[in-house]
């Protein structure tokens, strides 16, 4: 006989009541965790997708569309700029590397990105290493050779050596006429945890040749990935192109920040919702632990009548409240992460934007706050029970 045994017996004696208490706490925590992870995950997912693109250059127009085209492989591609602009950029002393991208075709809805093989040498930063690494096969070396993104290969089941034909546009419409040229898969990329996992990379010459008879400007590119020589050079480059009438140069990370600031109200609403949900979770914890303690009032009075001291009563009630709350919190955190993983997977399938599912500081604070609330609300009724006259509850 001991405190732990009494607590265990109490919990197991009313399994449904204990389960409901745990589930109610778990539901509140799961909601709060999900909202926190979503708020953080969307931000970090978009920022992470933009990381390989320090600067993007393209035709004058909407910077958002340029970023959507190049970074996220979304939206209708903007009109082309001349390949000569790529060469101008390469000659610029502020530029460390400039790689062109041409979009406009797809295979079964997966976007084809025409580029140059230097892209396989592109190092984001010394810590991250090369952005694109070959998992199987090799990089393209000639027109109509293709390298598949990891997820694209997984989803289509395509292998090195397979051949395919692309269609014009961003989606493959039923009955749409494809290009005549056949592509051959020569390599498959390792996952990059971003939209390019769902892309098909090929030599930009392929795009030019496939579109040769379509009346489009020869040797045009949609955008240019630019790696500046340094931070100061990046700012200098931005300044050089600020008044350019044909082209724009943008920092995708800044565009994303601006996008978030435009959506500031929506983010604020999400923040308010997350605070409200956290508050709700705390109220649920308070109510559940208090309710459970109130249900034990009669047992507390019996135990006092047969000799339990205040310390024992408080210990039993505190441990019982904490145990149920902690099980609820653990289940809630697990459920919150599970729901987030499911949503993140859905988003990844649709956009290939990867929302990282790590533990956040806010989540840690939430768990701490909830456990503290559980401790307080387990202690208060237990202490109150000791101040009551035992006879009142017998």
């Amino acid at each position, binding site marked *: 006989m001991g405190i732990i045994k009494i607590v265990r017996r109490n919990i197991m004696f009313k399994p449904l009541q204990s389960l409901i208490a745990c589930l109610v706490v778990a539901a509140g925590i799961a909601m709060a965790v999900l909202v926190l992870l979503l708020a953080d995950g969307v931000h970090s997912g978009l920022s992470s997708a933009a990381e390989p693109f320090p600067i993007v250059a393209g035709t004058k127009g909407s910077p958002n569309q340029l970023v959507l085209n190049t970074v996220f492989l979304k939206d209708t591609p903007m009109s082309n700029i001349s390949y000569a602009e790529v060469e101008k950029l390469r000659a610029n002393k502020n530029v460390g590397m400039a790689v062109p991208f041409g979009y406009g075709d797809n295979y079964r809805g997966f976007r084809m990105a025409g580029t140059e093989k230097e892209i396989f040498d592109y190092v984001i930063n010394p810590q991250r290493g090369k952005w694109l690494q070959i998992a199987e096969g090799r990089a393209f070396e000639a027109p109509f050779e293709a390298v598949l993104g990891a997820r694209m290969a997984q989803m289509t089941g395509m292998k090195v050596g397979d051949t395919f034909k692309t269609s014009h546009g961003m989606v493959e419409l039923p009955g749409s006429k494809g290009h005549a040229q056949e592509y051959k898969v020569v390599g498959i990329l390792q996952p990059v945890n971003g939209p390019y996992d769902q892309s098909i990379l090929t030599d930009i010459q392929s795009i030019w040749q496939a579109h040769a008879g379509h009346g489009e400007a020869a040797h045009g590119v949609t955008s240019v990935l630019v790696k500046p020589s340094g931070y100061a050079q990046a700012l200098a480059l931005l300044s050089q192109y600020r008044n350019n009438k044909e082209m724009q140069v943008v920092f995708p990370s800044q565009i994303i920040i601006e996008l978030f600031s435009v959506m500031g109200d929506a983010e604020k609403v999400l923040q308010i919702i997350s605070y409200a949900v956290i508050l709700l979770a705390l109220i649920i914890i308070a109510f559940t632990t208090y309710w459970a303690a109130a249900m034990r009032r009669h047992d507390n009075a019996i135990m006092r009548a*047969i*000799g339990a001291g205040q310390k024992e009563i408080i210990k039993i009630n505190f441990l019982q409240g904490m145990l149920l709350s902690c099980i609820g919190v653990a289940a809630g955190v697990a459920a919150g992460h599970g729901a987030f993983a499911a949503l993140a997977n859905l988003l990844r399938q649709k956009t290939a934007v990867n929302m990282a599912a790590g533990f956040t500081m806010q989540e840690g604070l939430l768990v701490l706050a909830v456990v503290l609330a559980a401790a307080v609300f387990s202690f208060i009724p237990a202490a109150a029970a000791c101040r009551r006259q035992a006879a009142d509850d*017998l």
Partner: protein
Amino acid sequence: MLLEIKNVFKKVTEPSGEVITISHADNLTLDAGGQMLLTGSSGSGKTTLLHMIAGLLSPSGGEIYFNGKRIDNMPERERDLWRARNIGYVFQKLNLIEALTAEENILLAGYFAGGDMAELKRRAHDLLERVGLAGKKDVLPGKLSIGEQQRVAVVRAVINKPVLLLADEPTASLDAENSRIVLGLLRGLCSENGTALILSTHDEGVKQQFDEWFDIKGGRFLSHGHN
């Protein structure tokens, strides 16, 4: 003298706002090992008086002494400890903890009093055997008959060999046969351990078995007698 009660009373406020006295004991004394009967109909104030003696309820006035030490004005914490060491209580409503088995209910009282668990287990086993419940030590109270539950409650009340045992209508919900068994058990165990006993009942027939009795009506002691 083990117990001395001086003009102890309890007043409560009715929902209507009226203040009424629900129990009033002018003077009452009990020697160590003595046995006393409180008789009176339901609502006469017997339970309130026993609760006040056990320190489960504070009196509105008067004084209660136990072995010469005043106990009615003790702080709750001190009173809990005093109760654990000195008092055994058999409740009218049995009040067994539903989540614990018969044996665990009994051992719980010993655990709170800080007793040696091996010794308590041995004693609980002996007592359960004596009351015919050795085979039901692992049964939850809900699966026991009322008579069996009452016997478990009696064993729980005596497991610590208390100085004073308070039994509140212990036979109220029992048939005649079980009443006789429980009453005999209570009195026998108290005699063996030198435990003083105050037993309340509405059954006038029990009077003959006790040396001393008090009649209570409307919260006040009406008469006092000896056999």
